[in-house]
Protein backbone atom coordinates (compact mmCIF):
# COMPACT_ATOMS: atom_id res chain seq x y z
CA UNK A 1 0.00 0.00 0.00
CA UNK A 2 1.32 3.43 -0.87
CA UNK A 3 -0.11 6.93 -0.52
CA UNK A 4 1.73 10.12 -1.41
CA UNK A 5 1.33 13.82 -2.04
CA UNK A 6 3.27 14.83 -5.16
CA UNK A 7 4.52 18.33 -5.91
CA UNK A 8 5.89 17.63 -9.38
CA UNK A 9 4.27 16.46 -12.63
CA UNK A 10 2.20 13.31 -12.14
CA UNK A 11 1.91 10.61 -14.82
CA UNK A 12 -0.85 8.50 -13.25
CA UNK A 13 -0.83 5.44 -15.50
CA UNK A 14 2.97 5.19 -15.52
CA UNK A 15 2.91 5.38 -11.71
CA UNK A 16 0.25 2.68 -11.46
CA UNK A 17 2.22 0.41 -13.78
CA UNK A 18 5.47 1.05 -11.92
CA UNK A 19 3.91 0.38 -8.52
CA UNK A 20 2.18 -2.78 -9.70
CA UNK A 21 5.37 -4.10 -11.31
CA UNK A 22 7.23 -3.66 -8.03
CA UNK A 23 4.71 -5.75 -6.03
CA UNK A 24 5.45 -9.46 -6.51
CA UNK A 25 2.43 -10.38 -4.38
CA UNK A 26 0.15 -8.94 -7.05
CA UNK A 27 1.41 -11.19 -9.85
CA UNK A 28 -1.18 -13.85 -10.74
CA UNK A 29 -3.28 -13.13 -7.64
CA UNK A 30 -5.17 -10.21 -9.01
CA UNK A 31 -8.15 -10.55 -11.30
CA UNK A 32 -9.30 -6.96 -11.01
CA UNK A 33 -7.65 -3.54 -11.11
CA UNK A 34 -9.85 -0.46 -10.70
CA UNK A 35 -8.21 2.89 -11.43
CA UNK A 36 -9.67 6.35 -11.11
CA UNK A 37 -7.97 9.50 -12.35
CA UNK A 38 -9.22 12.97 -11.52
CA UNK A 39 -7.97 15.70 -13.86
CA UNK A 40 -8.25 19.45 -14.02
CA UNK A 41 -10.95 20.73 -16.33
CA UNK A 42 -10.64 24.06 -18.12
CA UNK A 43 -13.99 25.33 -16.86
CA UNK A 44 -15.77 25.50 -13.51
CA UNK A 45 -19.01 27.26 -12.58
CA UNK A 46 -19.32 28.50 -16.17
CA UNK A 47 -15.95 30.24 -16.18
CA UNK A 48 -12.73 29.42 -17.96
CA UNK A 49 -9.98 28.36 -15.61
CA UNK A 50 -6.43 28.72 -16.84
CA UNK A 51 -4.47 27.52 -13.83
CA UNK A 52 -4.97 26.10 -10.36
CA UNK A 53 -2.97 26.00 -7.17
CA UNK A 54 -3.46 23.01 -4.93
CA UNK A 55 -2.62 23.56 -1.27
CA UNK A 56 -2.49 20.87 1.40
CA UNK A 57 -1.72 20.47 5.10
CA UNK A 58 1.64 18.70 5.12
CA UNK A 59 1.51 15.87 7.61
CA UNK A 60 -2.24 15.81 8.12
CA UNK A 61 -3.00 15.13 4.47
CA UNK A 62 -0.66 12.12 4.28
CA UNK A 63 -1.93 10.93 7.66
CA UNK A 64 -5.53 11.17 6.47
CA UNK A 65 -4.82 9.31 3.23
CA UNK A 66 -3.07 6.56 5.22
CA UNK A 67 -6.12 6.29 7.43
CA UNK A 68 -8.63 5.80 4.63
CA UNK A 69 -6.23 3.41 2.88
CA UNK A 70 -6.11 1.24 6.02
CA UNK A 71 -9.86 1.46 6.31
CA UNK A 72 -10.33 0.24 2.72
CA UNK A 73 -7.92 -2.65 3.32
CA UNK A 74 -9.94 -3.70 6.36
CA UNK A 75 -13.33 -3.22 4.80
CA UNK A 76 -12.86 -5.05 1.50
CA UNK A 77 -10.89 -8.13 0.40
CA UNK A 78 -8.40 -6.15 -1.64
CA UNK A 79 -4.79 -7.05 -2.38
CA UNK A 80 -3.25 -3.59 -2.57
CA UNK A 81 -3.93 0.05 -3.30
CA UNK A 82 -2.19 3.23 -4.40
CA UNK A 83 -3.23 6.86 -3.86
CA UNK A 84 -1.26 9.75 -5.39
CA UNK A 85 -2.44 13.36 -5.21
CA UNK A 86 -0.87 16.44 -6.80
CA UNK A 87 -0.21 19.72 -5.01
CA UNK A 88 1.30 22.93 -6.35
CA UNK A 89 0.50 24.68 -9.60
CA UNK A 90 -1.28 22.78 -12.35
CA UNK A 91 -2.94 23.63 -15.64
CA UNK A 92 -6.04 22.23 -17.36
CA UNK A 93 -5.80 18.58 -18.34
CA UNK A 94 -3.16 17.88 -15.66
CA UNK A 95 -3.95 14.88 -13.47
CA UNK A 96 -4.83 15.78 -9.88
CA UNK A 97 -5.37 12.41 -8.26
CA UNK A 98 -5.04 8.73 -9.06
CA UNK A 99 -6.50 5.91 -6.97
CA UNK A 100 -5.75 2.30 -7.95
CA UNK A 101 -7.11 -0.78 -6.19
CA UNK A 102 -6.11 -4.40 -6.88
CA UNK A 103 -8.21 -7.38 -5.82
CA UNK A 104 -9.05 -10.97 -6.73
CA UNK A 105 -12.57 -10.05 -7.85
CA UNK A 106 -14.04 -6.91 -9.31
CA UNK A 107 -16.72 -5.93 -6.78
CA UNK A 108 -14.18 -5.13 -4.08
CA UNK A 109 -11.91 -3.21 -6.45
CA UNK A 110 -14.76 -0.99 -7.68
CA UNK A 111 -16.24 -0.43 -4.22
CA UNK A 112 -12.97 0.35 -2.46
CA UNK A 113 -11.90 2.68 -5.25
CA UNK A 114 -15.16 4.62 -5.05
CA UNK A 115 -15.00 4.78 -1.26
CA UNK A 116 -11.45 6.18 -1.37
CA UNK A 117 -12.34 8.86 -3.91
CA UNK A 118 -15.50 9.97 -2.11
CA UNK A 119 -13.81 10.09 1.26
CA UNK A 120 -10.72 11.85 -0.09
CA UNK A 121 -12.84 14.52 -1.78
CA UNK A 122 -14.96 15.06 1.34
CA UNK A 123 -12.29 15.04 4.02
CA UNK A 124 -8.65 15.00 2.89
CA UNK A 125 -7.18 18.46 3.56
CA UNK A 126 -6.54 19.81 0.06
CA UNK A 127 -7.71 23.18 -1.24
CA UNK A 128 -7.98 24.46 -4.79
CA UNK A 129 -7.43 28.04 -5.84
CA UNK A 130 -8.38 28.75 -9.43
CA UNK A 131 -7.05 31.50 -11.69
CA UNK A 132 -9.58 32.56 -14.33
CA UNK A 133 -8.91 33.83 -17.83
CA UNK A 134 -9.66 37.37 -16.59
CA UNK A 135 -6.68 36.98 -14.19
CA UNK A 136 -8.92 36.89 -11.12
CA UNK A 137 -8.31 34.05 -8.73
CA UNK A 138 -10.76 32.40 -6.33
CA UNK A 139 -10.76 29.62 -3.81
CA UNK A 140 -12.99 26.73 -4.81
CA UNK A 141 -15.52 26.71 -1.99
CA UNK A 142 -16.96 23.29 -2.52
CA UNK A 143 -16.31 20.34 -4.73
CA UNK A 144 -18.58 19.77 -7.72
CA UNK A 145 -21.13 17.02 -7.17
CA UNK A 146 -20.12 13.48 -8.06
Amino acid at each position, binding site marked *: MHVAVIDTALDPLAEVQRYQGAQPHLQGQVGATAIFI*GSMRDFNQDQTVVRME*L*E*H*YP*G*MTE*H*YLQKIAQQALQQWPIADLLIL*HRVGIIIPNDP*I*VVVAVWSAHRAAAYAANRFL*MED*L*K*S*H*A*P*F*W*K*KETLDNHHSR*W*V*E*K*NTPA
Partner: protein
Amino acid sequence: MTIQVRFFARLREQLGMAETVVSASQAHTVGDVWLYCVGQTYPRHNVLCAINLEYVGFDDPVKDGDEVAFFPPVTGG
Protein backbone atom coordinates in the same frame (compact mmCIF):
# COMPACT_ATOMS: atom_id res chain seq x y z
CA MET B 1 3.59 25.78 27.57
CA THR B 2 2.39 26.79 24.12
CA ILE B 3 -0.06 25.70 21.48
CA GLN B 4 0.98 26.01 17.86
CA VAL B 5 -1.81 27.33 15.63
CA ARG B 6 -1.96 27.01 11.84
CA PHE B 7 -4.30 28.40 9.19
CA PHE B 8 -4.75 27.15 5.65
CA ALA B 9 -6.04 28.23 2.26
CA ARG B 10 -8.65 31.03 2.14
CA LEU B 11 -8.54 31.36 5.93
CA ARG B 12 -4.77 31.87 5.90
CA GLU B 13 -5.13 34.57 3.25
CA GLN B 14 -8.06 36.33 4.91
CA LEU B 15 -6.47 36.38 8.35
CA GLY B 16 -3.11 37.27 6.87
CA MET B 17 -1.28 34.68 8.92
CA ALA B 18 -0.19 31.10 8.33
CA GLU B 19 0.67 30.35 11.94
CA THR B 20 0.83 31.76 15.43
CA VAL B 21 1.31 30.60 18.99
CA VAL B 22 -1.10 30.68 21.93
CA SER B 23 -0.18 30.19 25.56
CA ALA B 24 -1.64 26.91 26.81
CA SER B 25 -2.91 28.68 29.91
CA GLN B 26 -5.10 30.94 27.77
CA ALA B 27 -7.01 28.16 26.02
CA HIS B 28 -8.87 25.10 27.23
CA THR B 29 -10.70 24.23 24.02
CA VAL B 30 -10.25 24.61 20.29
CA GLY B 31 -12.93 27.29 20.46
CA ASP B 32 -10.79 29.24 22.95
CA VAL B 33 -7.83 29.05 20.57
CA TRP B 34 -9.99 30.33 17.74
CA LEU B 35 -11.33 33.20 19.81
CA TYR B 36 -7.89 34.15 21.05
CA CYS B 37 -6.32 34.16 17.57
CA VAL B 38 -9.19 35.40 15.43
CA GLY B 39 -11.64 37.20 17.69
CA GLN B 40 -15.40 37.09 17.46
CA THR B 41 -15.80 39.02 14.27
CA TYR B 42 -14.76 36.23 11.96
CA PRO B 43 -17.55 33.65 11.58
CA ARG B 44 -16.69 30.10 12.67
CA HIS B 45 -19.30 28.80 10.26
CA ASN B 46 -17.64 26.62 7.59
CA VAL B 47 -14.36 26.47 9.49
CA LEU B 48 -12.92 23.00 10.14
CA CYS B 49 -10.40 22.28 12.87
CA ALA B 50 -7.81 19.67 13.78
CA ILE B 51 -5.60 18.87 16.75
CA ASN B 52 -2.33 17.09 16.00
CA LEU B 53 -3.42 16.19 12.45
CA GLU B 54 -6.81 14.71 13.49
CA TYR B 55 -10.20 16.31 12.88
CA VAL B 56 -11.83 17.58 16.08
CA GLY B 57 -14.70 19.85 17.11
CA PHE B 58 -14.51 23.37 18.55
CA ASP B 59 -15.40 22.02 21.99
CA ASP B 60 -12.51 19.56 22.12
CA PRO B 61 -9.86 20.27 24.78
CA VAL B 62 -6.38 21.47 23.89
CA LYS B 63 -3.21 21.00 25.90
CA ASP B 64 0.37 22.19 25.99
CA GLY B 65 2.32 21.16 22.91
CA ASP B 66 -0.71 20.62 20.67
CA GLU B 67 -0.81 21.75 17.07
CA VAL B 68 -4.22 23.23 16.33
CA ALA B 69 -5.24 23.95 12.73
CA PHE B 70 -8.15 25.84 11.18
CA PHE B 71 -9.16 25.61 7.54
CA PRO B 72 -12.09 25.96 5.12
CA PRO B 73 -14.03 23.04 3.62
CA VAL B 74 -11.67 20.84 1.62
CA THR B 75 -11.75 20.66 -2.18
CA GLY B 76 -9.25 18.00 -3.21
CA GLY B 77 -9.57 15.13 -5.66
